[in-house]
């Protein structure tokens, strides 16, 4: 019996609601409160062609990605009690190109406004749920905003897990091995300073450029990258170097189609290697990460890690409902 079944047996109303992802969730990787960037390559942001044939793809690469899944599973009055699951994994690519999971962490927890949970259910919740993430009770009366708060809590939990895993991974990274993360490199200072770690960001909620530079970045042709610029972002405010890379032609689609932002260590060597690294990532376009909706920006190995995590995640409580989903 799950902890929420215990609640339901004790009088809570069963729930089965997974809100659609909010724009904030999609832009989860964007640094909050970023500072204006400084160009570290070229005097003005330029478009550079990446090598169409990559020189060297690192023989050993590990890819890190995470996932989050949550749903409202019970109601105590209007207080929504949420079951959440976050997980992250690292898959290492072998010499045959096959990915094997090497690191994995997960966390299943309850999210509840503990102060608004009825006295009858609260002890039960505290006893039955092994891991509770309390949230502010003020928004309980506003269900939509409350769920945004829940979503943010889950996102933070996922980011925390990914950061922990990334740090654990780079500690054991081989001499020539690279780590590619889905998202910000700058979440962890240790990772952000590692010479063989790359962050691949596919959401562009925040813009780092403006004016002519922004225009050049958003209209990059496929197979081009921008000049490297310095970004100081994330909670840690660790500086990293970054550049945009277009994997697929945007013409006929939208400005962000096939557009990646890459983060790497803030070091001159990064500037030197930006084209070579871009050529490597360009080669990672195939195989396509379909059927993911954002396959144009999602590298297949990162997609694979996500699918791996989904396959291993506990079954979503929502799918237990046999009623059609509205």
């Amino acid at each position, binding site marked *: 019996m799950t902890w929420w079944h215990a609640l339901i047996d004790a009088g809570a109303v069963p729930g089965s609601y997974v809100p659609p992802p909010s724009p904030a969730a999609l832009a989860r990787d964007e640094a909050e409160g970023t500072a204006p960037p400084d160009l570290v390559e070229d005097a003005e942001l330029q478009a550079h062609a990446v090598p169409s044939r990559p020189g060297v793809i690192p023989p050993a690469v590990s890819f890190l990605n995470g996932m989050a899944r949550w749903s409202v599973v019970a109601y105590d009055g209007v207080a929504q009690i949420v079951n959440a699951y976050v997980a992250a994994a690292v898959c290492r690519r072998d010499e045959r190109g096959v990915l094997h999971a090497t690191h994995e962490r997960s966390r299943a927890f309850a999210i509840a406004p503990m102060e608004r949970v009825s006295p009858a259910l609260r002890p039960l919740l505290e006893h039955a749920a092994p891991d509770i993430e309390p949230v502010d009770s003020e928004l309980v009366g506003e269900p939509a905003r409350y769920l945004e708060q829940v979503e943010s809590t889950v996102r933070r939990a996922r980011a925390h897990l990914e950061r922990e895993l990334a740090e654990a991974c780079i500690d054991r990274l081989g001499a020539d091995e690279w780590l590619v993360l889905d998202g910000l490199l700058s979440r962890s200072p240790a990772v952000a300073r590692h010479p063989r770690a790359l962050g691949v960001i596919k959401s562009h909620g925040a813009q780092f450029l403006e004016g002519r530079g922004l225009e050049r970045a958003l209209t990059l042709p496929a197979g081009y990258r921008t000049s490297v610029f310095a970004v100081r972002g994330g909670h840690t405010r660790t500086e990293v170097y970054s550049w945009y890379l277009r994997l697929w032609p945007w013409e006929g689609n939208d400005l962000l189609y096939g557009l990646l932002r890459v983060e790497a260590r803030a070091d001159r060597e990064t500037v030197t290697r930006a084209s070579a690294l871009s050529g490597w990532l360009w080669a990672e376009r*195939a*195989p396509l990460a379909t059927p993911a909706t954002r396959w144009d920006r999602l590298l297949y190995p990162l997609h694979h890690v996500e*699918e791996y995590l989904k396959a291993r995640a506990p079954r979503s409580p929502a799918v237990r409902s046999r009623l059609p989903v509205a």
Partner: protein
Amino acid sequence: MIDTAIPIAIGRVVATELKPATPHQFHFWTPTDTTIGIGAIVKVGAGSQEPGDERVVYGVVTEGFAYSDLATPLHDVVGAEGDPARADEAPTARQQIRYWTAAVLRQTPEEPLQPVPLGQVYVADDADVAQALRMDAFLYSATPTAIPVGLYTSAGRDAPVYLDADFLLGPEAAHLNISGVSGLATKTSAVEFLLASIFAHFPAHKGRVAAVCFNVKGPDLCFLDQPGDLSEEDRHRYDRLGVPSTPFQRVRLYAPLKADGVNLNTLRTHPDLVGDVEPLTWGLQEVVDYAEVLLNRDDIDAKADAFIDFLRDRVLGRTFDDGFGTTHRVQTFADLGRLFRSIFDGLEITAGGRSDTWRTHHIATMRKVRNRLLNISTRCKGLVTDDGPSSDLPWNAFEDRTVYVIDIANVDPLGQDLVFARVVSKLREQLERRELGVDAVVVFVDELNKYAPGDGPETYVKKMLLDISERGRYLGLVLFGAEQFRSQVHRRVVGNAGTQLFGRMDMDELATPGYQVLTPATKSKLATLPIGELMVRHPHFTQPIFVRFPKPPVLRGRDGVERFPPAADVPFEDAVVRHLVRLDRRVRPNQVKDLIADREPEDVRRALAAARRTRPDDVLAYFRKVLGARVDSEAGVPREHHAVPPLNPISDEPY
């Protein structure tokens, strides 16, 4: 050898709403580099630690699928930018699956019959194979009846597969049918191996067993007593199956003579081997009982039957007055020819041509029967003798675990039919009387497409094959039949075969309705089956099983002809010498040649046949004695003339 190593799971059963596990079928996945394939036997369960969860399911892989997470082929094109060469440059391999469908062979416990549990999948070891194929009942019983048919091989393992003698040789079921394309299906080799296996493993409590093989193609079965070349792998397989890798210890070869009456009509005429070949010659007495074989569909009528019965009951072997003043004693074709001539002359001369019946039989009927009977002595000269005694199989003294090969490859088709009909009929008669000398006889007949076609006329041979198929198992008369196209053999012949083997098959044949129960993958495997591998269906096996069998331990026909090239026909005198020396080593060639120098060949042949039949202590003396006077088969009736030529041996005359 039972493998007691701790099993390692090689897959896991999966079931979805669209593809659920059922009591008779399940699906599982394996790593992409798995060693299993179509035909592999797997085991589900037995690894569970849950108390009470002891269900074990055995299955055979019948279908395999591989696919990746590619949503549409177009995405691969896009990813490679339309250049197939670039598709290989992708640094990451797509996630792939090897997904297999297996048909359930057995569940333990058998009841309650439930869907296959979603458990781990293991490769079957020896003990599992025995369980899966329900061989434990006849392999480990107090009176085992297991006959090795080959090795099941998969995932680097091999396990013997056994047939149940009670279902292969009777009485529960019987008969074996083997199909496959010519040259690649190794049908003859499979039967040779299986006969060796039967001889090695036929249980003592079931009695004695022998085999009769009709050699209808070249030298196929002419060297069963000679060792062939075996590889180390073959020898290992023999060891594994517990079958000696030696040629048949007891082989008796029979071949008719050529038209000259002294040289053998076989490809085993090399001087080193020809001495082991017994002549097969029949006279009128042996042929007339199977006169129906000689009649085609148009001939078969009540009048002809009645006249043949009359000859058989009233004339043959008896002193008989033809009504025109001549007394006959018909023992040979020559005697029969004289009888007919006497009757026709009598009707023409005595009756003045006004009567066309004799003893209620119309002259046309008599002419027809005469033509058919006397034609055989010309068409099958050497097998059927005009005049003289027969040399036949030892009908009362068949020996245990002996192969009797009858080489009729070079005999006229009509003669082949006659040999087949008579041999099988005699086997049946002797088995019914329990006088054959053995309790069971395997009759191997190749080319069932020719002898028992699904369509075409109802020939005597086809009726005989049907009779064996349907009733032989009660007598111990077992048919091992082979053909290229199973779909074109009479349904009751193949349908009554309890055990069926399939070598490499033709795709057109596999498209016929008889193979609808096989999955496309199984059909594909059958169409590409390597030499030495067979698919087996047996009453104990709920699904077809693929096995490998070793090369037979005997010299193949083609190799035999190369190693022992057939000798050219020897001159008449030398052939006579050879026959007599074979009967008695003391015989000196010059003595024989002097003896027959001024003799009529027919007289010499008769004397030789008499010596062969009598086998006296002093062969030369006996031969001299018989040659000195008229050699009479039984009664010593004076011989008036030589062989009776047919009226028109190859005409289309309706008689």
